[in-house]
C-alpha cells in the first residue's frame, strides 16, 4: 500500500462527508461494481427461486441472509481501485471464492445483524485480523465512528425498502388497464397461493435488482468510513505530505551534491568562462528548476484549459477534398457521358420547355392550394372567421287571425274611432269588435308584437306589459275587459264608456300616427 498512489484525496473528513466519498467511489467504478454484483447474485437468486418455488418468502429470506457473502466482492474491487489497480471483471470474479474463506461462518451467523457490518468488514478482509487482535482493532475503530456506521445501515434498510416498494409501484403503474381490472387486492390476499407464486417471485426479483444498484454503494460507504477512521487515527494525510517533503529534500540534496562534485575540478575555468558566454547562454543551469524547464512548463500550463480551450469538432461533409484536387479530378473522370449530358442540358435549347413546365408546376401549386382551401372551407371558416355567423332568425309568418278576427291592416277602415262611433248605436258588438280588432292589428304591425295564434286575451295583455308603455297598457286593459264582457257575457257597456273608449283610441293612436 502506497499512500501516494491513492486515487482519492486523503484528508480527515466528517463522518457524513466520508460516506459521500464512498458514494463518489462507487460512482467512479459503477459499471464494474454493478456488473460483478449482478453476475454473482442474480444466478444465485434464480437458483434459489427455482429450488424453493413453493415458498418464495423462504427463497427471499435466504438470499437476503447471504448478503455479507456477496459484499466481499465490491470491497475487494474498491480496495484495489483505491490504489489505482482496478481489477478487470474477470480477475475480480476469479478472486471471489478466495475472498469468501476467512470467517464466512461468523459473518453469516452472529455478525449478520451487526449494524456496522460494512464499516468492520475491511478489518477481516483487508487486514486479515481474527480473534483477539480483531477485537482490539474493533474497539479502537468503534471509538468514534460507530454511530455513523450504524446510521448508514439504518438508512440503507429504509432506502432498500423505499426503492423496493417504488419498483413495485412502478411495475403496477406500467400495467395495461385491461389487466389491472382483475387485480383486486383482496383477490391477491385471499386467492389460492399457487396462482400468485410467480408474482411473489417477481417482487423478490425486484429486490435482487435493487441490491445491484444499492449494495455497492453501501459497501463503498462503509469502506470510506473505515478509510476515514484510519486517516484520523494514523494521520495518513500528514504522512503523505511528510513523505513528499522528504523526497523533495533528498532529491535536492542529491542534486546539489552532484552539481558540486561535477563543478569542483573545473571551478576556476567556469568562473572565467561565465562572463564571456553570459548574454547568450541560458541562465540558471545548475538549479533544480532551470530556466529552460520553467519556460517549458509555463508553456505547457498556457496550453491548458483556462488559457486555451481547444475543441475538436467533427462534422460530415461532401467528399471533395481541397487538399488534393488532383485525386478528386481523377475520381470525377469516370462518368464522361454524364458530363456530356449535363453540358448539353446546360445550353439554352430547352428553355421554352422549361418555361412551360414552370408554368404548369406553379399552376399545380395554385390549384392545389385552392382545392385545399375549398376542401377544408368549414375548417378554415371555423378558425379564420372571428365573428361567428349568427343563426338566422326564423321568419314566422305574421299572424292573420286571432279570436276569429281578421287582423289585416287593409280590412280595417281608416278612421277607426269614427267608424266605431257610428256602429255603436246599431251594433255595439261590432263596434267593440272593430276596436279590439284594430288594437290587435296595430300591436301586430306597428309595435311588432309577436302574437301566437293560440294566445288568450290575458296573454296578449301580458305581452303588452312587456312593451312598457303604461298608457297603451291601461287602454288595452280597459278595452279588453269591455270586449270580453260583450263577446262572452253579452253585456253592453254603458253609453259614457262608449265615448271614453273612442276618445282613448284617438288620444293613443292619432298621437302615435303623428309621431
Amino acid at each position, binding site marked *: 500500500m502506497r499512500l501516494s498512489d491513492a486515487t482519492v484525496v486523503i484528508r480527515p473528513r466528517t463522518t457524513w462527508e466520508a460516506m459521500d466519498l464512498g458514494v463518489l467511489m462507487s460512482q467512479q467504478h459503477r459499471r464494474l461494481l454493478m456488473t460483478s454484483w449482478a453476475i454473482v447474485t442474480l444466478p444465485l437468486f434464480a437458483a434459489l427461486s427455482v429450488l424453493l418455488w413453493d415458498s418464495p418468502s423462504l427463497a427471499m429470506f435466504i438470499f437476503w441472509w447471504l448478503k455479507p457473502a456477496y459484499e466481499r466482492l465490491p470491497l475487494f474491487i474498491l480496495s484495489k481501485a483505491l490504489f489505482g489497480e482496478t481489477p478487470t471483471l*474477470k480477475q475480480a470474479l476469479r478472486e471471489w471464492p478466495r475472498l469468501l474463506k476467512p470467517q464466512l461462518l461468523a459473518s453469516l451467523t452472529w455478525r449478520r445483524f451487526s449494524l456496522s457490518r460494512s464499516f468492520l468488514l475491511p478489518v477481516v478482509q483487508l487486514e486479515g485480523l481474527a480473534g483477539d487482535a480483531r477485537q482490539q482493532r474493533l474497539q479502537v475503530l468503534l471509538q468514534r465512528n460507530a454511530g455513523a456506521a450504524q446510521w448508514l445501515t439504518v438508512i440503507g434498510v*429504509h432506502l432498500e425498502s423505499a426503492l423496493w416498494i417504488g419498483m413495485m409501484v412502478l411495475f403496477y403503474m406500467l400495467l395495461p388497464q385491461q389487466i389491472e381490472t382483475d387485480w383486486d387486492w383482496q383477490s391477491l390476499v385471499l386467492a389460492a397461493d399457487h396462482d400468485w407464486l410467480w408474482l411473489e417471485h417477481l417482487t423478490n426479483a425486484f429486490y435482487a435488482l435493487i441490491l445491484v444498484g444499492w449494495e455497492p454503494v453501501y459497501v463503498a460507504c462503509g469502506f470510506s468510513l473505515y478509510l476515514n477512521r484510519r486517516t484520523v487515527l494514523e494521520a495518513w494525510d500528514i504522512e503523505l505530505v511528510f513523505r513528499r517533503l522528504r523526497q523533495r529534500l533528498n532529491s535536492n540534496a542529491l542534486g546539489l551534491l552532484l552539481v558540486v562534485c561535477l563543478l569542483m575540478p573545473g571551478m576556476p575555468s567556469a568562473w572565467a568562462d561565465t562572463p564571456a558566454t553570459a548574454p547568450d547562454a541560458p541562465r540558471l543551469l545548475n538549479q533544480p528548476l532551470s530556466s529552460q524547464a520553467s519556460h517549458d512548463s509555463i508553456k505547457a500550463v498556457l496550453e491548458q484549459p483556462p488559457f486555451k480551450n481547444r475543441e475538436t469538432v467533427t462534422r460530415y461533409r461532401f467528399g471533395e477534398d481541397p487538399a488534393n484536387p488532383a485525386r478528386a479530378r481523377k475520381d470525377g473522370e469516370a462518368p464522361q457521358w454524364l458530363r456530356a449530358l449535363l453540358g448539353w442540358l446546360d445550353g439554352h435549347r430547352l428553355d421554352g420547355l422549361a418555361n412551360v413546365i414552370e408554368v404548369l408546376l406553379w399552376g399545380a401549386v395554385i390549384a392545389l392550394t385552392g382545392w385545399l382551401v375549398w376542401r377544408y372551407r368549414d375548417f378554415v371558416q371555423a378558425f379564420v372567421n372571428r365573428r361567428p355567423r349568427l343563426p338566422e332568425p326564423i321568419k314566422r309568418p305574421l299572424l292573420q287571425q286571432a279570436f276569429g278576427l281578421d287582423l289585416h291592416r287593409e280590412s280595417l277602415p281608416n278612421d277607426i274611432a269614427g267608424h266605431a262611433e257610428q256602429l255603436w248605436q246599431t251594433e255595439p258588438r261590432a263596434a267593440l269588435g272593430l276596436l279590439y280588432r284594430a288594437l290587435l292589428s296595430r300591436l301586430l304591425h306597428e309595435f311588432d308584437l309577436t302574437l301566437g295564434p293560440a294566445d288568450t286575451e290575458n296573454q296578449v295583455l301580458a305581452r303588452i306589459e312587456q312593451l312598457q308603455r303604461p298608457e297603451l297598457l291601461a287602454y288595452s286593459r280597459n278595452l279588453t275587459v269591455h270586449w270580453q264582457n260583450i263577446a262572452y257575457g253579452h253585456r253592453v257597456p254603458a253609453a259614457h264608456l262608449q265615448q271614453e273608449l273612442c276618445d282613448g283610441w284617438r288620444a293613443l293612436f292619432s298621437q302615435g300616427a303623428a309621431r
Partner: protein
Amino acid sequence: MLEPTAPPRKAPLDTRHQVETPEGIDLPLRPAGLMVRALAFTIDLGLRGLILGVLFIALALLGKLGMGLGSLLIFAVSWWYMVLFEVLRQGRSPGKQWMGLRVVHDDGTPVGWSASLLRNLLRFVDLMPFGYFLGAISCLQHPTFKRLGDIAAGTLVVYGERPLSRPSLPEAEPRRAPIPLTLSEQRALLGFAERQGDLSPARVSELAALLAQPLRISAPNTVAELNGIARGLLGPT
C-alpha cells in the same frame, strides 16, 4: 473487459466542489450526500408532523371551521415550510440546521425565492413513484449529489462551516524551519502538532522519523523539534 487496468492518472476523487468566482478565487464547497440529507429530511418531516398534530388538536375544537382551516394548514405547511425556512434562514430548515447543512445556488450564493420554490415544488417529481425513488437514484448518481429538483433549480446542498475551536499545540521552544516550506507542508507540520493528542505515541515518533534525516535532526528529540517548528510557524500568540 469493462475497465482497463491502471487508467491514466486523473484528478483524485474528492468531496470538495470548487466554484471559481470571476475574480479567480476558488471557493471550496462540500456538497452533502444522500445519507445526511435523508436524515435531515426525516427530522423536518417529524417536525412538520408535530406542528400539524398540535394544530389539528386545537382546530378539532372548532368543528367544521376547524376542518377547513386544517386543510389550508396542510397546504401551507407541506408546500411552504421548506421554502420559507430556506429563503429566510440562509438555506437552513430546522432539519438541515441540525445536520449542519444549507442550500445554496450552484455558485455558492444564498438561495433565492425562485430557486427555492422550484426545488421544493419538484419534490413532487422526486418522490415519484414512492418514497423519493427518483430523488434517491438521482442523488446517488450525481457527482454533486443533486436530486432532480436541485438540478432544475440550480441549487446545491452543502455542509455549512462549523465554528472552529482553537487547537492546542504541545509546549515547545519556537524555532525556525531549517529550510523553506510550502504552504501544504506548513499545514502538515501544524496538523502534526495539533493532532498529536489523537495519535498513538508510536505513530507520532514514526511520522517524525520520516523527517529526521532530511532535516538533520537527531533521532530522540525529533518530535520536540517538529513541535518547535510548528510553534514557530504559528507565530507569536
